């Protein structure tokens, strides 16, 4: 008779009822989506939806501050941080869905269902003392004032001890992620020494050759003795064997050209 639903129907006006049914079902859909979606990012977005709808419900019941905090802190800050972490870890990494214990998922589902039925059965028959947000707000002249009186009055110690939690969390993050430098930072001099001692080419590599008809990156430069400078071509091209052959003028053709023999003009220099 005096079940929760009846109490709600008698106290709540139509607008709030409509809000309840819309936001309530959306929150539920979000929660289901969070559990059922395969990708972590989707899960995170689903839960953000649930949180926003819960915030709407809080506000509809007159808990304005709580609603705003829910949106700003949970949906805005915490969930977005969560998304950042997911992005850092890698969006692609999806969890293994293989059951390590056989029948675990079925058992968990049944247990969850039983728990939900128990909660519904109990809560739907409950009668609540009818204080309401309006009554609670009236004591200190407003919602925010009432919360302030509780946080900085009655629950001051709990509020202060919460700082221990935050400090612990910060230290924990430091321990698990921070790497203090062990050896001194390398100066330019050390880096330079290291470069020469390593035995590899110390400076920047020679640029590709520039010829009358070719200057692309696959054209090797020539060393003073006429041999090819292999390292002037990118390693990937070298590995592929895509080094262009260098056109060379033969010695006597050069002599002829120098002597002004025009018969070679227009021919390929091979």
């Amino acid at each position, binding site marked *: 008779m005096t079940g929760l639903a009846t109490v709600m129907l008698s106290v709540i006006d139509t607008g709030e009822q409509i809000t309840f049914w819309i936001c309530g079902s959306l929150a539920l859909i979000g929660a289901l989506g969070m559990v059922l979606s395969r990708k972590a990012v989707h899960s995170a977005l689903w839960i953000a939806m649930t949180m926003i709808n819960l915030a709407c419900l809080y506000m509809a019941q007159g808990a304005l501050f709580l609603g705003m905090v829910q949106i700003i802190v949970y949906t805005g800050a915490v969930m977005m941080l969560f998304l950042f972490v997911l992005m850092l870890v890698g969006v692609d990494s999806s969890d293994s869905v293989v059951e390590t214990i056989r029948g675990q998922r079925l058992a968990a589902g049944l247990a969850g269902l039983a728990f939900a039925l*128990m*909660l519904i*059965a*109990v*809560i739907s*028959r*409950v*009668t*609540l*003392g009818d*204080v309401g947000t309006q009554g609670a707000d009236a*004591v*200190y*002249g*407003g919602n925010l*004032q009432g919360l*302030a*009186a509780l946080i*900085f*009055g*009655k*629950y*001051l*110690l*709990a509020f202060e*001890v*919460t700082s*221990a*939690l935050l*400090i*612990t*969390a910060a*230290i*924990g993050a*430091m*321990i*698990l*992620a*921070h*790497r*203090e430098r*062990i050896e001194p930072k390398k100066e330019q001099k050390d880096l330079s020494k290291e470069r020469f001692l390593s035995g590899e080419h110390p400076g920047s590599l020679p640029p590709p050759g520039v010829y009358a008809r070719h200057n692309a990156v696959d054209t090797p430069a020539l060393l003073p003795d006429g041999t090819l400078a292999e390292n002037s071509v990118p390693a990937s091209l070298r590995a592929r064997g895509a080094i262009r052959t260098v056109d060379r003028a033969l010695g006597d053709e050069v002599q002829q050209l120098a002597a002004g023999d025009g018969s070679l003009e227009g021919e390929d220099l091979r």
Partner: protein
Amino acid sequence: MNGLIALVPIPTPNMDLGQIAPLEIVFGAALISVLVEAFVRREGRRRVQLVLVFASLIAAVAALVGLAGTRTLTAQASVAVDGPALFMQGTVLLLAIVGALLIAERSIDPAGDAFAPRASALPGGREERELTAAGWSQTEVWPLFLFCVGGMLLFPASNDLLTMFVALEVLSLPLYLLAGLARRRRLLSQEASLKYFLLGAFSSAFFLFGTAMLYGFAGTFSLGGIADALSGNAGDNGLVMLGVALLAVGLLFKVAAVPFHQWTPDVYQGAPTPITAFMATCVKVAAFGALLRVMYVALGGVRWDWQPMLWIIAIITMLVGVIVAIAQTDIKRMLAYSSIAHAGFILLGVIAVSEAGIASTMFYLAAYGFATLGAFAVVSLVRDSSGEATHLSQWAGLGKRSPVVAGIFTLFLLAFAGIPLTSGFTSKFAVFSAAIAGGATPVVIVAVFASVISAFFYARIIVLMFFAEPAEEGPRVVLPSAFTALALAIGVAVTVLLGVLPQPLLNLAQQAGIFLR
């Protein structure tokens, strides 16, 4: 709407700082300890931290002694300063001092203390080897330890569910971290940490859910307020039943009662041994303190509803603990299951619902705590080249090679089994008689049966140590520094003393009286 709200002044909160002095000292020291990490040079940090930790813990004990006999609610009635709270806090502090001795030890492992040189270094990687060679250590362990102790002091003294929840988190969070910092077998340690964290968060959620249900029923978080609402209520208490059940899940998880014990063997095995010792003792004390307070103060009015539930849980906890312990081949896992069984024995004191129940529970916790710290200290001494030798087969013939250490371990095992002239006998006798007086005779019969089974597997280890041939390349017992030696000496002394002369502590526990509402 005139736009201006008539502002009602918020009354200035009244905090009598003297009455929560132990809490303040420990939390204050924890904050200073964080600053030490930031500002003291690496070489000097360990020394400063050690001085700070021991000085603050001893100062907190002194402050607690100064509060003896106080019976009042303080900090806007969110903290109860009464006999049981002071007794529990004293037990936590003394056990924490001994635990800190174990954590401070660094001559057992040739590489240093029991903690990874840097938790962020890859297990088995180059960086880890270099840091180990350079002798680095993670002194952040100390601020975490102090925060944890602070939470443990607040947990059994909280007089409302909100403060209790915050205390629960303050004591749990550092433990999740500390469990993952072992120097040896780091992957196992990290797995333990993650398991403990996930399951612990889950159980906290249950606690919170239960709190919400009870708030929905009573309209207040205060334990006394809930009791008043219960006495003024006729019939229709679905919310209360749900709240009690969910709250109990959260608390029984912390004391490692079956079926909420799944985390215990893995975490006890994976965590660094000093942390396991600290966890197995202090968490139990704090959690039983809170369980007693919630059940007796807030829910005493519905004891006929929760008593049968705790009867069943006590029975299956004792039986599962002792039966599964028989099958264990790892000494740390064996001790974990033994600690589960002991949680069942301690629950006997809770289901008595009497003053004797409170006193016997508190006595049991103190006696069990010192023996457990000692037992884990011995475990940390038996080592081979790869670290602690925890496989039972490696303990064969230990008594022939190191009779003193094996003898000390035997004493602790006898105390666990409840053999006369050890603290275990006195404490078991106390809870059993309290439970019989409270009408729980069937549970006590099961408990006696479970004690007999447990005596079997404790005796098996004693036989293994003294009568089996030593293995060829067996582990050796490392000579500890003064830290562990002192911890062991305290453990032995308390275990024998409480077995031979239990009366002073029993009197103290009985004088503690009942909870203040």
